[in-house]
């Protein structure tokens, strides 16, 4: 397009003066600056930088100029058109930004609107609580053991030094499968899993067994015919009550926080000797004055009854095929439901088994 223009007489032609070019540039810049949106800018571009714009037309004339004038005119027009193009590009960017801002502003929504169309799911705190407990022991190298809920009488009682005429059998009111002579029960504790573990593994044994157990208790705020226990069993060389205490202190701390340890009181369980009741240091008042005096969690005792434990009775080792001359062991058992009840301040045991979604939902997917 910048070829010589043969339609014009070279003598009649004269290039635009510097002032004229400058005026056209100013005119173009004013029009560009006056464009308030991209459409107006488009019109300004057409008018001042399009093919029919004065500068473009002038540019076409350059070829017709005398040779000595061509260079000056070309330079002058080139600079002028560059200035206009620059102004257009700056204005284009500005207007695009303004347009985007306007669109974004128009697209604003109320981000506080509710968005959950279906309700959240959750797992039961007894499930997640059992997992939490298992993880505490797994982290120490222990493993989880399991056994059936409907269990042989021999494994639930006899193998655990609870012979048929043992008065302690009356301590655990047992559900019997009909007929009673079939010697099958709903396990009254998770201890038969201990027996099964010893019967199927060789020491060293470090296991924890969470699970549901049954007693013929009427259903009220603190009793239930079905509840959950976690049992621990260690059988190894040189195991002592001190290792039992260490394990339970660690367990207590993991569940209830630093400084929460345990206390032993002599007790009786047929499957352990010596036996102890385990008390947990109250994690609310820590047994410290003056908080303990008015503490409702421990009722002013400073300690909370937590479970039973002891050194595995050598008779149990014998019945389960472990040589008591070589190995000693310890075992403990706690109520999972009870542990969760005081960890989470749950007042009524029945809330655990009522199936009310508001209860489970409060705990989410992990404890």
């Amino acid at each position, binding site marked *: 397009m910048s070829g010589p223009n043969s339609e014009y007489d070279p003598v009649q032609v004269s290039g635009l003066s510097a002032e004229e070019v400058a005026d056209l540039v100013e005119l173009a810049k004013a029009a560009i600056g006056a464009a308030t949106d991209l459409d107006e800018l488009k019109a300004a571009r057409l008018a001042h930088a399009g093919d029919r714009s004065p500068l473009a037309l002038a540019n076409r004339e350059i070829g017709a100029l005398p040779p000595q004038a061509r260079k000056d005119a070309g330079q002058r027009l080139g600079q002028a058109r560059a200035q206009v193009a620059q102004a257009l590009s700056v204005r284009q960017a500005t207007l695009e930004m303004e347009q985007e801002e306007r669109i974004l502003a128009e697209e604003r929504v109320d981000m506080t609107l509710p968005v959950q169309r279906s309700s959240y799911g959750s797992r039961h705190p007894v499930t997640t609580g059992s997992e939490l407990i298992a993880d505490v022991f797994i982290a120490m190298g222990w493993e989880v053991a399991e056994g059936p809920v409907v269990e042989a009488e021999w494994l639930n009682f006899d193998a655990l030094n609870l012979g048929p005429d043992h008065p302690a059998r009356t301590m655990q009111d047992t559900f*019997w499968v009909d007929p009673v002579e079939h010697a099958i029960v709903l396990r009254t504790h998770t201890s038969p899993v201990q027996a099964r573990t010893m019967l199927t593994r060789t020491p060293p044994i470090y296991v924890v067994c969470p699970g549901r157990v049954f007693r013929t208790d009427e259903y009220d705020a603190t009793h239930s015919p079905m509840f959950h226990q976690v049992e621990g069993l260690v059988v190894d060389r040189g195991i002592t009550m001190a290792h039992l205490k260490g394990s339970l202190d660690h367990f207590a701390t993991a569940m209830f926080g630093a400084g929460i340890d345990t206390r032993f009181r002599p007790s009786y369980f047929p499957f352990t000797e010596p036996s102890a009741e385990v008390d947990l240091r109250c994690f609310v008042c820590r047994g410290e004055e003056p908080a303990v005096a008015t503490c409702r969690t421990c009722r002013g005792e400073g300690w909370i009854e937590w479970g039973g434990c002891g050194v595995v009775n050598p008779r149990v080792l014998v019945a389960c095929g472990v040589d008591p001359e070589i190995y000693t062991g310890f075992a403990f058992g706690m109520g999972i439901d009870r542990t969760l009840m005081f960890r989470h301040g749950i007042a009524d045991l029945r809330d655990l088994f*009522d199936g009310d979604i508001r209860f489970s939902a409060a705990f989410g997917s992990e404890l």
Partner: protein
Amino acid sequence: MRVPLSWLREYVELPDAISAEQLAAELTALGLKLEALEHVGSDMRGPLVVGRVLTVQPEAQSNGKTINWCTVDVADANGSGEPQGIVCGAHNFAPGDLVVVVLPGGALPGPVEISERKTYGHVSAGMICSARELGLGDDHTGIIVLPPDSAAPGDDAFALLGLRDVVIEFEINPDRAYALSLRGVAREASLAAARRGLVAAFTDPAARATPTPNDAGYPVAVEDSASCPVFVTRGVSGFDAGAPTPPWLARRIQLAGMRPISLAVDITNYVMLELGQPIHGYDADTLLGPLRVRRAAAGERLTTLDGVERDLGPDDLLIADDSGPIGLAGVMGGATTELSATTTRIVIEAAHFDPATIFRGQRRHKLPSEASRRFERGVDPTIPEAAADRVAELLVRYGGGTVEPGVTKVGAAAGRRTVSMAADLPGRVTGMEISVATTLANLRAVGCEVEAAGSALSVTVPPWRPDIDAPFDLVEEVARIVGYEQVPSVLPPAPPGNGLSRSGRLRRRVGRTLAAEGLVEVISFPFIGSAALDALGLPDDDSRRALVRLANPLSSEEPALTSTLLPGLLRAAARNLGRGASGVALFESATVTLPRGSGAAPIYGVDRRPTATELAALDAALPDQPEHLGVVVAGERERSGWWGPGRTGDWTDVLAAIQAVARALGVDIRAHGAQRAPWHPGRCAELRAGDRVIGHAGELHPAVCAAHGLPARAAAAEVHLGALLGLAADIVPGPTLSAFPVAKEDVALVVDESVAAADVEAALRAGAGELLESIALFDIYTGDQLPVGKKSLAFALRFRAADRTLAEGEAGHARDAAVAAAAASCGAVQRR
């Protein structure tokens, strides 16, 4: 065991430096667990004194009652020495009687503040007290009339009646039966004081000189000496059946938790509480011939003291005379020979019985008694003579008469048991530093005799500790005196473990998946009755109607263990909706119980490990207990809101939930149309993994929804979770991803309405060949454009090769092959 401290102090000299609370705490640390500590009488305030009734003036009232206007001599207790005027409503007394009077300013339990008050036209200045008003029992039929000459007017009634005391109630473990007596608790109290560095001397109330047995006592024949190793009788004659029980004795029994009945009975109970030896008293005039200790014959019957007639059998150990059974040995006496208001001659029985026999007897007859509680746990077999002697002494002291010279003793206590223990065992087992000297001292403190024999100790166990028969029992005795609080805290050195088991990890994955799908986990009881199965509409021959029944269910409505998780889930769903939830989506995973098998589980000995065969027999006897997963969705699943309408949960939700679980486990499961209760016959899927049926899902039958109070379209699923876990992908092979372009082909196929989409998809998949990357059903059409009874299924097929760009027409070719396969197997016709 309830222990009044005033009574305990008779046998142990407790220093004042140890409070009741401290004593209870130390006893708890020794193994007698504090249940309650009661400051009896702390809610009463004097003046509470003995008074002598001077005058009684009955006055009829307009309300029909007669009250007595009395004057009572309370000596100087009222400050004036003048007779006290008191209105009294009771009628069981007369002038001259000694009564208990609370004067104005005093207070009785309630609290009842006593002051002068105007009543029935008199100013009544105090109250004449009944037993109940003083917390002495339930008797409110009249006021207390004290035995004549037992006190003087003005005497302090608190001391006289033992109204103020401290009672410590302990929970006694089965291995500490000796602590079911004041004798046993006093021995422990002495150890308790020692833990605080105090000396509290113990005096054994069973240590008393007794006359030598002779042939002049009441004749006894023990026919079963294994069940009755010792049987002692003593006799008292000339006893005054009307003699009252001394108030202090009645009070002690009452504080110990027993009800005073009559002097003779109260004394037998008193001595049982004191020594731990149960005593039975017979009215000698009702006995016919010698006492026999024997097993019952089948068909024999006995009416026990509680008035119940009981059928007896060869397992029952009896006391009999020539008339037949007169008592269940060690459990409860019979009605025909009991001590009564006319008894003047008494035969005292103090015997020792085999614990297991007594345990079985009381269990069989559901008759736990104070006597059986002690016998079944083990009493001291060496004290029957002392106990019988003590009873005789108290009978004649308070009831008059004479102790007969005859002393019958059949049998003898077994010799004391000796247990050998390595001297360092207590330290090795407990992890505490325990010297041999400490071990010796502690064993002796609990009554053992100990001799060192090399590195072992030969320990002779005291007769009141039948629970000690192995070295570890001795370890506990040593350790509890050292103090369990001394046990150090040391973590055991566990070897490296394998972490959570595979099934444990998978279960967590299942739970998290379902929670992420919006389902809430619940836990239900596994008890069920036929009504719940009826509500599910299970046909009579449904295998889920075969239940494992309980012999002693809590409720006769739910006498069995459930075979399905659905009843619990449906109930929980309905409960939530009933409590205002607009929708509910629940899951539960638990074992169900299915009958199987061999029936009876063997009982083995415990002296060795059962063999592998024997262990297998135990497991074979147990019912099948597969792990199930149940899901229920009912009501609103997605709520309506500013975004538009909500959505009611339906069969797609439960199917999606199960598919999500399967996907999380890497198991491919397919749905097939099926019919099964409790589902809608046209909306039930059988779920299969390969050829294996792993469960069912679908919309619940309308009748089932109605029976459970669930809204229409409620849906449920139940699958065999254990099987799913077993099928879970173990090591997943990594896929090879093709970067070559995909070719998409859509086809619409017209088939009969009855043809399952999954079958058409399977045919397409099979026919498409290995270039097929994926297939998805994206539209279903029925309507005017199609003949009646036909539907159009639109599938999107994606083809891709692993190693090249597909050639022109290659994908179309594969599509045509797929359509041909669908035509062949499903009668599909491609819709143009």
